[in-house]
């Protein structure tokens, strides 16, 4: 048995919970060394039941998150490589369009106020199920009103409130930036000061908090912007993804806001639980592992690639051309020789397969908890992040840029940056049989690359060069 977390003969509530959890997790390991099977059919049944029959009454607490229930379900299908039939797609579109608010944005349900989070989940659901043209959803999004509503939420410190009279936090900003990028409504006014706000949320631990508090001295924003709340996996993902999205617009002068990537990387790697915790991720220091952080933290490593922080040695990465051929593509053997990620991808997959799957279908935080729509989506996306290496490809960025129609500028940059993310051929590592493989997802948006390209090409009125799957060497 792996070594338990040392408690130095000084037990406290935290260490008691930790030890109990370690025991529970160890009990999950099948004695015969098996159990590394993704039960795709059971999860599909779970998802289909939710989609077609509906969610049981305990989901009433998520009545204001209907777009999330939709997005989690549709995105889980996409990652599990399941296409939705045209009838259900149309029903999805019709349902989603009932959430659009007459004054712009989408609410958590029909007649609910527009909300940044609901808008992200609605638009991303439309990226999956929608299409151009009448009744297709895409062209029925009122982008003009959406933009005005976004501007109405803007705060003097560069942040945004999530809804009229709502709170500020980095989840909302991430959701706003994703939608603004997908729908081609980013402007300098919209994002003015936002990067500095994001940077101010980084805590001494290296991860990011929910928000920072602005102090104004004579109407000028003071440099002291204390973070509200400790470093947290969910907020860290949102802040880091926002930072990566905003990077093309950040000036390169000395006063430009900065993020400490060294400290951030250190915090991210320390969120991975040890062998006795089956290598799952936790969301905060001294808290327990939870399947959803497979995506929020496990998925954050890909984002670091955009900031030049990579496990691939520089020598192997120097070429802007095709990724270097590396042997041992899907085989378990020799994995350790070719894996150059910064976290333990194998262990994360094992956590999801062994502890994250509920025997009755759907995925979960950890045993003995129930499965739910949220954990199902983020465990599967996390599994995807652990299986595939998706990073910005300079070569692909150049190809996208080469066929850009229109003037150079922030729009061209936003488009080619977002679509430069490419799954590196030959760098996938799937624990268990090849049937465990799930689709790669875009690290910034958590949509498949196909869905991202489809909706962005439409709104930017561009065509994207056809991606030719690179042959594995």
């Amino acid at each position, binding site marked *: 048995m792996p070594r338990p977390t*040392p*408690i*130095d*003969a*000084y037990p*406290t*509530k*935290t*260490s008691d919970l930790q030890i109990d959890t370690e025991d529970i997790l160890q009990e999950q390991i099948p004695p015969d060394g098996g159990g590394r099977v993704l039960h795709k059919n059971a999860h599909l049944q779970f998802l289909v039941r*939710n989609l077609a029959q*509906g*969610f049981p*009454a305990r*989901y*009433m607490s*998520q*009545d*204001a998150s*209907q777009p999330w*229930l*939709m997005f989690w*379900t549709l995105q889980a299908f996409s990652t599990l490589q399941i296409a939705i039939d045209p009838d*259900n797609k149309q*029903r999805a579109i019709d*349902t989603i369009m*009932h959430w659009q608010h007459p004054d712009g944005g989408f609410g958590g349900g*029909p*007649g*609910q*106020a527009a909300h940044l989070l609901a808008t992200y989940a609605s638009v991303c659901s439309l990226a999956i199920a929608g299409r151009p043209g009448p009744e297709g959803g895409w062209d029925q999004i009122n982008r003009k009103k959406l933009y005005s509503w976004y501007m109405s939420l803007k705060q003097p410190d560069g942040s945004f409130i*999530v809804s*009229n009279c*709502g*709170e500020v936090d980095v989840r909302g900003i991430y959701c706003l930036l994703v939608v603004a990028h997908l729908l081609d409504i980013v402007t300098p006014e919209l994002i003015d000061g936002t990067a500095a706000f994001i940077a101010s949320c980084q*805590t*001494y*631990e290296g991860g990011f908090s929910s*928000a920072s*508090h602005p*102090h104004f001295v004579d109407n000028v924003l*003071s440099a*002291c912007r*204390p973070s*509200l*709340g*400790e470093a947290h996996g969910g907020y860290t993902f949102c802040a880091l993804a926002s930072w990566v999205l905003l990077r093309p617009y950040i000036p390169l002068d000395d006063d430009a806001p900065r993020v400490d990537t060294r400290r951030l990387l250190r915090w991210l790697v320390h969120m*991975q639980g*040890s062998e006795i915790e089956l*290598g799952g991720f936790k969301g*905060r*220091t*001294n808290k327990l592992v939870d399947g959803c952080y497979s995506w929020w933290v496990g998925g954050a490593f890909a984002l670091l690639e955009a900031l030049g922080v990579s*496990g691939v*040695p520089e020598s192997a990465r120097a070429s802007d051309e095709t990724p270097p051929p590396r042997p041992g593509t899907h085989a378990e053997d020799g994995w350790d020789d070719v*894996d*150059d*990620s910064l*976290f*333990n991808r194998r*262990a994360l997959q094992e956590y999801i397969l062994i502890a994250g799957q509920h025997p009755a279908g759907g995925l979960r935080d950890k045993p003995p908890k129930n499965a739910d729509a949220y954990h199902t989506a983020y465990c599967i996306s996390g599994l995807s992040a652990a299986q595939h290496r998706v990073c910005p490809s300079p070569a692909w960025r150049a190809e996208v840029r080469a066929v850009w129609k229109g003037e150079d500028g922030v729009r061209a940059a936003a488009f080619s940056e977002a679509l430069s993310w490419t799954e590196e051929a030959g760098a996938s590592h799937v624990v268990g049989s090849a049937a465990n493989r799930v689709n790669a997802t875009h690290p910034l948006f958590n949509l498949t690359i196909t869905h991202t390209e489809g909706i962005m090409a439409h709104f930017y009125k561009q065509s994207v060069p056809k991606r030719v799957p690179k042959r594995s060497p």
Partner: protein
Amino acid sequence: MSAPTADDTTEHVFYAERPEWADVVPVVQYENIQPLAPIFYSPEYKDATDYFRGVVKIGEKSLRVLQLTETIIRLNPAHYSAWQYRYETLIAISAPLQPELVLSNTLTKASPKTYQVWHHRRLLLTALGDPAPELAFNEEVLKADAKNYHTWSHRQWLLAHFDQENLWADELPFIDGLLEDDVRNNSAWHHRFFVSFERGSNDDKDEAEAIVKRELAFAKEKIALAPNNSSAWNYLRGILDHSRVPYSTQAIFARQYIVDTVEPRGNDILDLENPPPSEGAELPCAAAIEFMADVHEASGNEGISEAVELWRSLADTHDTIRKRYWEYRIRNAVATTGKA
């Protein structure tokens, strides 16, 4: 003036059956479509939200809207539109906010993990302008869950927003108590950093130095108590980074934690600046090895090989799950010296 409460102990009467609501036309959620992924609502919830949509449609803001939104919030505290409409109604009809805060106490304690309950309090406290009683309430909620993210960020907002001397005054003793209960409570450590280093109005240089000194001593004392506590090491690093003090200043302290076993204590005088590991300590402590590797790395060329050796021991023995990361540190450090 006070709103009739939607007390859940009395028998529930559907809004559709209340004569005083007969003038409002309820609005069903979905008309003419079969929504995908619907939720099965309880009859009470469906009834109340149908009337809520009806009220929002006509823009009514009245006393009875407070009752209706309370019904919904009690059934689903995450219904942000009901909260928002409720707040706007309170303001529109100039309802007294103190009773609303009292009601909010109950709702917050019942659903402390909901964003909306805390944000509503913020709006009320901002409008009322009296933050003093809030710390005690906050502490009460923390007693039930000492790591609740919302409770902590609310407390920090309260301190930063009002920035009153009397609010800050007892924060350190409060944190001391929490860390005595559980020295691994990272939320309490973060709060300590917030209180010690992130108070905007504090810019006295001598005082700042005294704070650094005090906090270094505090962190080391807590590390000695239970050395394998990431929260305390992160705090120690945080102080040093924040005040730009080199890690090497703490090398004598940290070195005591990278040995294999606790050294028996003689009768020699205890070095108070460098408390040794407790007798129950499980050594070597991975966080100390990491710390010492950073010390060596910062010292440059000769230090690198010592740092590499420590990282190697983490990768191969003491912290194997992070093998890739430690190897990355080795590659980076070696590449840097190669270039130098």
